[in-house]
C-alpha cells in the first residue's frame, strides 16, 4: 500500500522544551493508525503539527508527496487532511443539522458573493449540502437529534457530531483527537464500529488516544511516543511485546497496555 501521509523528522520546540523530537513515520492509504504514549509524551502537539494547526520547528509533513507543514489549517483541510476536536468544540448554538451543513463549506462551488446574491450555483450547493448532511447524520446515527441545538446533546452524541463535521468536508485522511476519551464500554464499542465503517468507506484514519484496549482492538498499526520521541512502531501485537513500550508504561497497570 502506498503512503498517503509522510511525517519526516518532525520537531517542535516550545522555548527550551522539546515537545516533539525528530519523529518520522508514514500513514498508508486506508489504514487505521494510532498514536499512543503516556501523558505529556507529545501526542497532542504531534496531532496539531500534522493537521497544520502548529508549525514545526523543523522537519515536515507531506500529504500525497506535497509538503503541508507551513500551510494555514484551512488550506490543509482543502487538500483533504481534516482533524476533529474533542467534544466541547462544536458550533454550540446551531442545530446539529446546521453544524453538519456548514461543515460542507469546502464542497461549495459558489463564491461568497454568489451566496450573497443567491445564484443558481449557490442554491444548488445549499440543496446538495442539506441532502448530504442528512446522509452523514444517518451514517453516524444522529438523525433522531438532527433538530436539536448542539450544546444540548449528551457526550456520546457530541463525539459523533465532531466526526460528522469532519466527514462533511469530504476528507482523504481524518485525524481523530481522543475519540474514546470518557466513554464507557458500550460507547467505546460503538465508536470502534463507526471508525471501522469510515475506513471501509475509503477513509484513512489517524487517531491519538489514551484508551489502550480500544487502540489495540481498532488499529492496523500503532506509533508510540515517549518524551516527544518515537520509541516504537508496529502492529498491536508487536507493540504489546515491545520492551521499550512496556518500560515507558512501567508503573501503570499491565492492563493499561492491554496485556
Amino acid at each position, binding site marked *: 500500500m502506498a503512503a498517503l501521509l509522510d511525517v519526516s523528522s518532525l520537531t517542535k520546540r516550545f522555548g527550551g522544551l522539546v515537545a516533539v523530537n525528530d519523529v518520522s513515520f508514514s500513514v498508508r492509504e486506508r489504514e487505521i493508525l494510532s498514536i499512543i504514549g503516556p501523558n505529556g509524551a507529545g501526542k497532542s502537539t504531534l496531532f496539531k503539527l500534522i*493537521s497544520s494547526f502548529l508549525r514545526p520547528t523543523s522537519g515536515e509533513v507531506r500529504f500525497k508527496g506535497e509538503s503541508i507543514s507551513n500551510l494555514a489549517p484551512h488550506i490543509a483541510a482543502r487538500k483533504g487532511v481534516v482533524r*476533529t476536536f474533542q467534544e466541547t468544540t462544536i458550533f454550540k448554538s446551531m442545530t446539529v443539522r446546521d453544524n453538519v451543513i456548514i461543515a460542507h463549506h469546502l464542497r461549495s462551488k459558489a463564491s461568497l458573493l454568489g451566496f450573497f446574491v443567491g445564484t443558481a450555483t449557490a442554491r444548488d450547493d445549499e440543496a446538495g449540502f442539506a441532502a448530504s448532511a442528512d446522509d452523514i447524520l444517518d451514517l453516524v446515527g444522529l438523525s433522531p437529534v438532527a433538530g436539536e441545538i448542539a450544546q444540548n446533546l449528551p457526550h456520546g452524541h457530541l463525539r459523533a457530531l465532531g466526526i460528522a463535521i469532519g466527514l462533511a*468536508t469530504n476528507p482523504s485522511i481524518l485525524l481523530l483527537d481522543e475519540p474514546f476519551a470518557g466513554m464507557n464500554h458500550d460507547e467505546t464499542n460503538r465508536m470502534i464500529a463507526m471508525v471501522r465503517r469510515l475506513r471501509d468507506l475509503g477513509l484513512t484514519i489517524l487517531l491519538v488516544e489514551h484508551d489502550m484496549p480500544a487502540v489495540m482492538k481498532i488499529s492496523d498499526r500503532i506509533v508510540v511516543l515517549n518524551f516527544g520521541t518515537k520509541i516504537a512502531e508496529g502492529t498491536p501485537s508487536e507493540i504489546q511485546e515491545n520492551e521499550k513500550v512496556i518500560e515507558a508504561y512501567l508503573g501503570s497497570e499491565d492492563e493499561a497496555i492491554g496485556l
Partner: protein
Amino acid sequence: MRKPARLLWTALFLVAVFILVPLLIMASGRADLYYTFTSVALLSIASAGVWLTFYIGRINIGQGAFALMGGYVSAILVVTYGWSFWATIPAAGLFCAAASVLIGLPILRLRGVYFAMVTLVLTEVARLLALALPITNGAKGMVSIPSPGSLSLFGFTIIPDFATLKNPRLAFYLLAVTLMVLCFGIIYRLVHSRIGKLCQSLQQSEELASSIGVNIAYLRVVAYAVSSFFGGVAGAIFVAISQSIYPSSFTVTDSINFMLNCFLGGLGYVFGPMLGTLVLYFGWDLLFETGKFQLLIYSTAMIVLMLVLPNGLLSLGMGPKEGLKRGRTA
C-alpha cells in the same frame, strides 16, 4: 418568518419610514424632528456595521474612527477636489473599507477584550490624525461645505440640487432613510445567506471553522470591511448635513454609543441596532429635562435594561432568531 409575513412587515416598515414619519412631522409642525430622525437613520447605519463585527465574535468600539474618516474623505473630495457629493458617498465607504482591511489584518487576530481595546484606541488615533494632518485643516476643521448638488444620469436629473429645494431637511431625511433601508437589506441578506452561517461559525469556534476549511482571516477582514464601509457612508452624509467637520465630530463617546445601540437592540437580531439607536437617541433627548440628572438616569436605565433583557429589546417580541447570545463574543 414565512415569506408573506416578511413581505408584509417590509411593506409596513417602508410605508412608515417613507410616508408616515414625514406626514407626522408635518402635522406636528416641528421641522427639527427631521434632523432627529435623519440622525437616527445615519447612526443606525454605523451601528449596523458594529453589529456585523459582533456577529463574527468581535467587540468593536472603533466605528467612530471610520465615521470620522468617511466624513473627512467626503469633505475633502467635495471642497478640495470639487467632486460631486453623490460620488463621495461610495468613495468614503470604499476608502474606509480599504483602511479597515489594512488595520484589520493585524488586529483581527486579537479576540475579546484585546480587540475591543485596540478599536477603542482607533477612534482616538483618528481624532489625533485629523488634528495633525495638513489636508484636514487641523482643529479649525472644514466648514462651509456646499450642500449636495444635483445628480443626473444619462441627462435625467434623479436628485435635484439640495440648495434649490424648499425643504432640504426632508430631502436629507429621505436620503438617510433610503441608505438605511439599503444597508439593513444588505445585512439581512448577508446574515440569512450562507455567509451569515459562516460568520456564526467564526463567532462560536474559529478553530473548528478553520478545520472545516473556512478561511477565517479572510472572512473576518471581509466582515470588518463591510462594517467600516457602513461607518464611512454614515460619516459622509453627516458631514453633508452639518456642512462642516471637525476632529471632534466623532469621538470615543460615539464609538461607545454605536456599540450600546447594538447591545440594547439585541445582538441576535439584524434589526437590533436600528431599534437600539432609535430608543437610545430619543431616550437621551427625553431625559434632557431632568438637567444634571440626565446622565445618571440614563446610565441607570441602561444597566437595568441590560440586566433584565440581556439579549436586547427585540428579545421581548421574538424568540431567539439569529442564534447569537450575549457572552459568546469572546
